[in-house]
């Protein structure tokens, strides 16, 4: 995946989250995670990603 691909994904997700609305965002993101994991077909990588993405959720400004 190129830098340009990553940017396209980033933008598409931003648009889609705004489009479904904040109320539906958690459900949408959970569906997306299940669907991507299904296509990934690599349970260990998916499980690692599930844990990794939970890190630093409340990261404040650097001191």
């Amino acid at each position, binding site marked *: 995946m190129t830098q340009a691909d990553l940017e396209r994904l980033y933008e598409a997700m931003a648009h889609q989250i705004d489009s479904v609305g904040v109320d539906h965002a958690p*459900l949408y993101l*959970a*569906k997306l*995670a*299940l669907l991507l994991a*299904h296509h990934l077909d690599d349970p260990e990588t998916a499980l690692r990603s599930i844990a990794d993405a939970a890190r630093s959720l409340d990261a404040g400004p650097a001191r």
Partner: protein
Amino acid sequence: MKPAGKSAHESLYFDYPHFEPPTGPARDTLRDPVTVAIIGAGPVGLTAALALAQEGVRSVLFDDKASFNDGSRAICLSRASFHIFQALGIVGAFEGKALGWTTGRSFYRGRQILEFDMPDSPSERFRPMYNLQQQYIEQFLHDAVAANPLIETRWQSALTGIRDTPDGAVLTITDPVESYDLPARWVLACDGARSATRALRGLRLKGENYEGRYVIADIQMDHEYPTIRRALFDPDCRRGGTVLIHKQPDDLWRIDYQLRDDERTEDAMAESAVRAGVAAVLRDIGHEGPWELEWWSVYSANTLALDDYRDGAVFFVGDSAHIVPIFGVRGLNNGLADAANIGWKLGWVLTGRAGPQLLDSYTAERRSATLDVFANATKSARFMTPPSPGWTLMRDAALSLALDHPFAGDLANPRQFTPFTYAGSPAVLADDPAFASGPCPGDLMPEARLDAGFLTDRLQPGFSALCLDPALTRAVNDAAEVGLSAMTLPATPGDHLDAGPATAYLLRPDGHVAARWKSASAALVLEAFRALTFRTGDPS
């Protein structure tokens, strides 16, 4: 509960019998010692009595009620339970009335997201599941008990005391006439979730309670739909909740619907609330005709069990030993498997065909089975009634995704009852490593077509050696061991047994594989039979 003006035993479709306590000459022998006292004449106690009688052992059933349990309660009987009834010679009545089924459908907001079929094939004697109201289950079992000279039943007779003795226990029984004591060598506590026996022994169930509550209601209506279990997730009639619909004989339909957190149980149980709840479900499934309310109750999921199913001379059997969630229909079926398990084991010990160590395998096998049920049912319960925001979000994500991606629908598959394997039990041998596949020791022997019939129709009572080589069959039968018979399987029994020309499978009386050998001999079979029946010091 029943509609206003109806007694507990008034039904749209079932005539409840009335049973008197012992009268006349029967009272002269009330205090006589009994070999096996069975507390509770529900489906589990009745099955235990029949299983003991099949082994030639007398028993006395005690029940504090004057009739069967009111309401249709447990309605799903698994294939394994039908095999238990088949082994007891009473399956005909059940086959004649119950509705067999294989298919379930799940819906999310009115759209079907999953259709699943439980394993079935022409080589199966029975369907994976049958729906039948519990009153009929009790009636058919009671018909067989009443006709059996080895079983005495005392109705309106409650257990009110129990104390241990060196030879068993002394029971205090209270009936409308008096309280009396009688000695019992063994006691089977089949008295259900609120077991009096368990309370008298000071024992407690341990485990977890789940939040979700369901109203379960039975209605009678003329409604066209095949015998397919329907699960409605987040339907119009119950936003955020789950509804289950099952067809039963006599145009009865079981409707389970989940209560919202803000619905008080007392309010939801009012007749008017149940009528409104049912009517909303019926609108959702397009039923516009009349219907009548038969019975309702409320239910919440628990996974609770005793640490040990035996306490001295008392064995706990069925719901007295464990309470499992309703999802996956494992409550009654698990209890019937308990009853069959303790029935043959105690029967063999009391008739001298097995040593007392065989009884130790009861808790080992059946408590492990319950823990397995807990693991599966907990999965189902979390899907049906998610316990937290995270479980709710993922459940909803799976359901929503399943509308367009069938793979996600499999997360809604309840994975119904499959028989537990007793691998590792003291009452099965280690596997022969020469096998690459096929049923292992501990597994329930798979059903098979034999000639015009089925394997399970041909099995004799007791242990059965299934041999590929007719000479081995003759050699085992020539040994004339009481309780062991051999039969020859067809030369090509099918790949599912991974059999060679000298292969043998040894089955226990309950149809589970006790041992198997790729290359068997009569000596191996006889040695295994003696080891598994714990008869030390036998002449060999």
